[in-house]
């Protein structure tokens, strides 16, 4: 799995005010070019509605009508639940598989086949199997979110230095202790990268599920709007999705920095100070 975090870090590094201004400038220029292209007839408003119309759409959907909120909420709920369940399952299974060589050997071919299958194609089959309720939608998001955490967790656990494992054995650590104190934290950076990948695809999974069968959600809103050729409003939904995805992506990066604090110098310093204070507080009272 690729580690997308660093790219964000690269982008984040240059987050000074001047650069933000320049980015905004570029964005405005792009939008203006789009508007002009539409007005000059170079872009087909059926596919690229006027940016001004999209802006109005934002105002309408979010403020005057406010009808996007329940859909947005539902989609986010599906994403969240599916993501949590799918990645939890992926991680849990990877942990089992990672602790047992035999299970790993026997499971591998199936994982490879499932991984090569476009998950979206399984969508209708899942709806067929799980019905129309929230379970099927959650199941689709789960399926989409399952693999990256699974593969990364497995890699993380299997990749723990054998010397460290020997050290734990020589201390007489139990399997549980080895797992909680060594394997899990060692795998955390990779798990976190896997979660980031999963989160990016969770949104797509929810959308597919809603396209296939649903009463509400951003996917439904999009079909409704495109079905009635109200493209400006449809774009509002798509852009909402993009923004959501972007912030989730960034949020996950931030989470990674907090959880895997030891890969970042400043955070390590801060954590070091915190632990010291905690020790002082504890040992000060007892001794």
């Amino acid at each position, binding site marked *: 799995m690729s580690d997308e975090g660093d790219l964000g870090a690269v982008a984040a590094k240059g987050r000074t005010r001047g650069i933000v201004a320049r980015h905004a400038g570029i964005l405005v220029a792009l939008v203006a070019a789009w508007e002009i292209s539409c007005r000059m007839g170079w872009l087909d408003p059926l596919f690229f509605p006027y940016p001004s119309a999209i802006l109005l759409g934002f105002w309408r959907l979010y403020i005057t009508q406010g009808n996007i909120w329940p859909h947005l909420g539902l989609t986010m709920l599906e994403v969240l639940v599916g993501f949590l369940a799918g990645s939890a399952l992926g991680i849990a299974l990877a942990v089992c598989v990672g602790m047992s060589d035999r299970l790993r050997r026997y499971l591998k071919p199936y994982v490879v086949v499932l991984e090569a299958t476009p998950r979206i194609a399984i969508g209708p089959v899942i709806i067929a199997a799980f019905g129309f309720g929230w379970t099927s939608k959650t199941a689709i998001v789960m399926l989409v979110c399952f693999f990256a955490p699974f593969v990364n967790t497995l890699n993380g656990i299997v990749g723990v230095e054998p*010397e460290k494992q020997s050290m734990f054995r020589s201390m007489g650590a*139990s399997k549980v202790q080895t797992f909680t*104190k060594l394997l899990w934290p060692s795998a955390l950076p990779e798990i976190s990268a896997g979660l980031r990948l999963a989160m990016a695809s969770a949104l797509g999974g929810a959308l597919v599920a809603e396209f296939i069968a649903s009463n509400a959600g951003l996917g439904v809103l999009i079909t409704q709007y495109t079905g009635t050729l109200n493209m400006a409003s449809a774009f509002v939904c798509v852009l909402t999705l993009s923004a959501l995805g972007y912030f989730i992506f960034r949020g996950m990066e931030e989470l990674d920095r907090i959880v895997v604090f030891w890969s970042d110098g400043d955070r390590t310093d801060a954590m070091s100070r915190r632990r*010291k204070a905690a020790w002082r507080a504890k040992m000060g009272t007892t001794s």
Partner: protein
Amino acid sequence: MADRGDRRDMSVIRAEALRKTFGGGAVVAVDDADFTVREGEFISLVGPSGCGKSTLLRMVAGLLDRSAGTLSIHGRDVTGPNPAVAMMFQKPTLLDWRTAIENVLLPSEIGGRVTDDDRRKAMGLLRLAGLEDFAFSFPSQLSGGMQQRVALARLLQTGADILLLDEPFGALDEFTREHLNVELMRIVGEVGATTLFVTHNIGEAIFLADRVFVMTPRPGRIAGIVEVPFERPRRPSLQQSAEFNALVSKVRATFETETTAGEDA
């Protein structure tokens, strides 16, 4: 000392015709090793790369099953890891997400609940290792030498009376290494632990040890045992003495008759 039982009581580690093969007998890593280590003794183990030093140590630690022979610790057969034995590896193997003191406390945690006594002992060991100021630093904030000292403190925190060290300072520069050797000798002396110490460095081996075991390359046999007569405490300047150099030459000779000169593994 009272004559409780015979001399056997004094021997902490006993190996007889100890043998370890890998790959279904294809690779003989340790062949026919016979030795005893007495209580409180410091043994250095030298030999060319791949001769089976680590394998031997791992068998003593109970991390590896032997293929043949007998091996006992305190008179009991070795069947698995033993709380009386603690091992330290070439790499510090510290946990990146724990501060130095938390790393030192790891053996206590694994043994059960961590008491305040454990905490005080850990801090004391860090002080001994000259790292009191760095108790709350994370491994990535420490230099290689400091990390090794943390690992040493962790080793001692186990409370084991048999210490196995597998080239613990191999990755460090000579100055740090020399300093840590002196520290190690002092600490081990204080604790009175029995020690098996693997190294590539003949000078280091002699400087630290009561006896030096010299191993041959594949199949690893113990080709010679050299007694080191120097009094303790030893000072670094000992290494410039003529006697010391004579002993280095002697070990080197045992060695070179076995190894084809200058081939790297």
